[in-house]
């Protein structure tokens, strides 16, 4: 029987690279990503799992990394905002810039991850589908209108 322990050795594939670390069982995945792995694009905006600024893909599934323990990611893959751009910005990232879908940019990484997950399942979502897909991400600057437009436009592809 697996004995419960307060600290565990985890192996996680982060943005395609395997990392191995000893982590306390109580450490949240978001702190593991930000503080232990120095991937600071993933943000924290609340303490109740409400705001979605910490959204990442865990084995391809959109999750809030503040509501997952780092030890729960053992053996899994994690995809963060830092992986979205290659040599150039992705179409979605460009669309955010073109539609002024960000102001302070703090919610943006989480928004981009939610939109990425949505577009992976539904490559050209309607406005209502985008709104439903981004419901778990709070933005306090934009009122969401431009964000929704940016995602709808990214789904439509180049005009």
């Amino acid at each position, binding site marked *: *029987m*697996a*004995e*419960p*322990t*307060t600290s*565990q050795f985890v192996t996680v594939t982060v943005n395609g690279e395997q990392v191995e670390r000893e982590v*306390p*069982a*109580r450490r*949240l995945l978001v*702190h593991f990503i930000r503080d232990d792995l120095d991937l600071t694009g993933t943000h*924290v905006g609340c*303490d*109740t*799992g409400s705001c*979605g600024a910490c*959204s990442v893909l865990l084995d391809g*599934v*959109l*999750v*809030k990394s*503040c*509501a*997952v*323990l780092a*030890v*729960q990611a*053992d053996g899994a893959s994690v995809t963060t905002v830092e992986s979205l751009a290659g040599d150039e910005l992705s179409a979605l990232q460009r669309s955010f810039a073109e539609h002024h879908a960000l102001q302070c940019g703090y919610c943006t990484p989480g928004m981009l991850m*939610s939109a990425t*997950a*949505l577009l992976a399942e539904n490559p050209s979502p309607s406005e209502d589908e985008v709104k*439903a*897909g981004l*419901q*778990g*991400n709070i933005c306090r600057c934009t009122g969401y209108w431009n964000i929704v437009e940016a995602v709808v436009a990214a789904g439509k592809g180049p005009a």
Partner: protein
Amino acid sequence: MLLREVSYARPGSVEEAVALLSAHDGARALAGGQTLVNVMKQRAASPDVLVDLADLDELRTIAVSGTTLELGAMATLTSIIRSSEVEVSRPILGEIAATVADVQVRNRGTIGGNICVNDPTNHFPPLLVALGATMTIRGAGGERTVPAEEFFVGVFETAVGEGDLLTRIDVPAGRGDGMAGVTLGVHGTYVANAAASVADGAWRIALGCVAAVPVRATAVEERLAGGEPDEASVRAAVEGLGATLDPPSDVHASADYRRSLAETSVVRAVLQAAERARG
């Protein structure tokens, strides 16, 4: 954000999970974690040991057996939304699952977690009471089943005791269901709700957010029994329900407002259920 120290184990089988839960004082099953981890972040509760059920694929099964829909306790809300079994045998479960919080929460959050937490504002406790669900619990002493109305014991408390594990929720097939209520914003936290279900003229109605556990509106159920409800008859049957309740008063609703919302929610849920029962 910062949890108290906790031990963690991820068992590979239900038996191992039950053994771990039994062997450690203060052990708690970790399902999707969408409530539990957040409660731990507030340090409002601090289990000593978390037994992560993530690897127990057998608890994720959604299947139909005869006229019963069997939901594994670890079925995520997203999987319930997408399940053709759910859509065919008890569609309201998928519809309501789709209104819980947001994509991220639904991707991780499980039906078992939603009811084991029994936050009084959660969607599934009143719904499963109205649907006449049965919960299967595995403990050190074996397996037992508990009807939904006996399952919910208090806030954050259910018939799942120390050392126990909820494994499955059985819901009879049916379509005559409705759920209505008021939330804080679209898909937000419930302020008040009611779920109603009718089969062969017999009603089951449960109210959420008015007490620590879902409350059956038995008097209304009896008044509606056998009839073919229309708006006037439902309103007549519901009249006076609020006065029998002792709901909490808080920043979102006074007790009086909750009483009124409870009545309105029942009317709307019953009418929806009746319409769907007619097909």
